[in-house]
């Protein structure tokens, strides 16, 4: 795999994960447990979809086949999507929503932090802006994991269940493949070992404070999102998200 090929792939992964998690949060509109959360969820979603757009725009330039950011977001099918499986998991209850957000945010924060020093200036620029947002996201989701983990008996039970349900999707965040390695060697992407170490360190720290038990490090992990092999959820997410673009393919302006 050449560096140029890897970069296109890598950008789509960043974009797709932001996009799909943003879409999941959009589903919660009007359904949050408090009005303050309503605002915060939409705020995080807005940041994520905004970041997705930035990554798509850069990816579209490099792919250079006439597709723009919108075409990449709304005209690719599930097997072409490169998002982490974690991001497509359903909202379920607020413990799952926040657990999913927390596992993602830790990965996102350390990834973006490393990308601000990327040898690719464009990547570094997008990451610098995104890092400010992701720092806030992480602070927020960590706080919620602690509140729910160390709150009431019920919230503790639900939060522990959420950790147990989601754990099998976390391996993909910190298990590098060829693309990740090519990006790291070129100084574009993060060092996979460091990323895994940082992710584990922070996740353990927050879960411990939250009186929660993390899954085993050698637990079986469900992977494949980065290569387009998804859970059954993604097809439905895209069916909804891409409805207009698919139903009205001749429409060029909206």
């Amino acid at each position, binding site marked *: 795999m050449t560096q140029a090929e890897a970069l296109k792939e890598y950008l789509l992964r960043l974009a797709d994960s932001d996009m799909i998690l943003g879409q999941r949060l959009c589903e919660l509109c009007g359904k949050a*447990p408090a009005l303050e959360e309503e605002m915060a969820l939409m705020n995080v979603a807005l940041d994520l979809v905004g970041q997705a757009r930035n990554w798509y725009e850069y990816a579209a330039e490099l792919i250079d086949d006439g597709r723009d950011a919108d075409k990449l977001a709304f005209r690719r099918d599930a097997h072409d999507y490169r998002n982490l499986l974690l991001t497509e998991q359903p909202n379920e209850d607020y413990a799952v929503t926040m657990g999913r957000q927390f596992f993602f945010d830790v990965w996102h924060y350390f990834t973006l932090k490393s990308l601000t020093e990327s040898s690719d200036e464009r990547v570094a620029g997008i990451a610098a802006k995104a890092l400010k947002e992701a720092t806030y996201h992480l602070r927020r989701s960590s706080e919620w994991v602690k509140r729910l983990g160390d709150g009431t008996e019920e919230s503790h039970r639900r939060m522990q269940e959420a950790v147990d349900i989601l754990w099998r999707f976390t391996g993909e965040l910190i298990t590098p493949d060829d693309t990740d390695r090519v990006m790291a060697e070129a100084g574009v992407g993060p060092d996979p070992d460091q990323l895994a170490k940082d992710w584990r360190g922070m996740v353990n720290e927050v879960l411990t404070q939250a009186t929660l038990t993390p899954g085993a490090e050698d637990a079986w992990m469900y992977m494949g999102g980065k290569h387009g092999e998804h859970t059954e959820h993604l097809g439905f997410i895209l069916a909804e998200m891409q409805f207009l673009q698919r139903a009205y393919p001749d429409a060029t302006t909206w």
Partner: protein
Amino acid sequence: MYAQLVETGAKRLKTKEEMSPEEREFQEKVDAETKIEPKNWMPEGYRKTLVRQISQHAHSEVVGMLPEGNWVTRAPTLKRKLQLMAKIQDEAGHGLYLYSAMETLGADRDEEIEKLHQGKAKYSSIFNYPTLNWADMGAVGWLVDGAAIVNQVVLQRTSYGPYSRAMIRICKEESFHQRQGYQILLDMMREGTEEQKAMVQDAINRLWWPALMMFGPHDDESPNSQQSMAWKIKRKSNDELRQMFIDQTVPQLEFLGCTAPDPDLKYNEETGHYDFGEINWQEFYDVLKGNGPCNRERIKTRKNAIDEGAWVREAAVAYAEKQKQRAQAA
């Protein structure tokens, strides 16, 4: 306008002679355009009317997120998706801001929300209509936010200080939403396919009359208006506001190249205003009573969100309490 038929509790206006010295002093202040602030004395009717009106307004912001939430997962482009998300976020912010203004009157947010969920409190009737195609996101911004602005621009001068200041801030954001909404429709009409143009006309056909209903009943059918006007909570009558809205909206409608579902809509050279047909008041009162297309769904969604989130809020309280105890023990 996000408040309709707000009860004042007054059957008729008191004369100056009938007022107590406190009431007279209060009315003189209002008449002199001095803002009433939370710590000032105010008649109980004034306070209650404001609580009802501001809470209705806040509920409307929150319930109003639902018809948009219906399309935020299906927006056609990244740009439109981001705009809609930002609009929804603003509305949640308006809701919070208005509930805070309401709480300066000694009312409790949770109690008022509970009334909403029990069907005892109103919100704007417009949000009981479904959003059936993407152009509805444009039409809601243009017509619904447009109607709200006509009312709220006037409410910037309302007599209660915190409400007036909330209106000033909210108006700025809503003007922005209205322009964005109109732009959605304009882009579809100018550069869209025949199918897209049909969506725009369909959205206008469905939302036109409900938007006009947002201003409430005719002045002579509006028993609470007189007292609200005397207290300067309300500054213009329902019919005046509705006419202002029609006069500013029809040229925009024509510029779009669309029509209104009203054969009687016509410019009147003599009055300098647009004449328009009679609103279906039976439908208006039906919707207010809970018999609109989406009343049940809207309330159910809101009630479920708060009910199912109870354990989350309890956890947050319990955690905060534990943190406090730990800080004290340390």
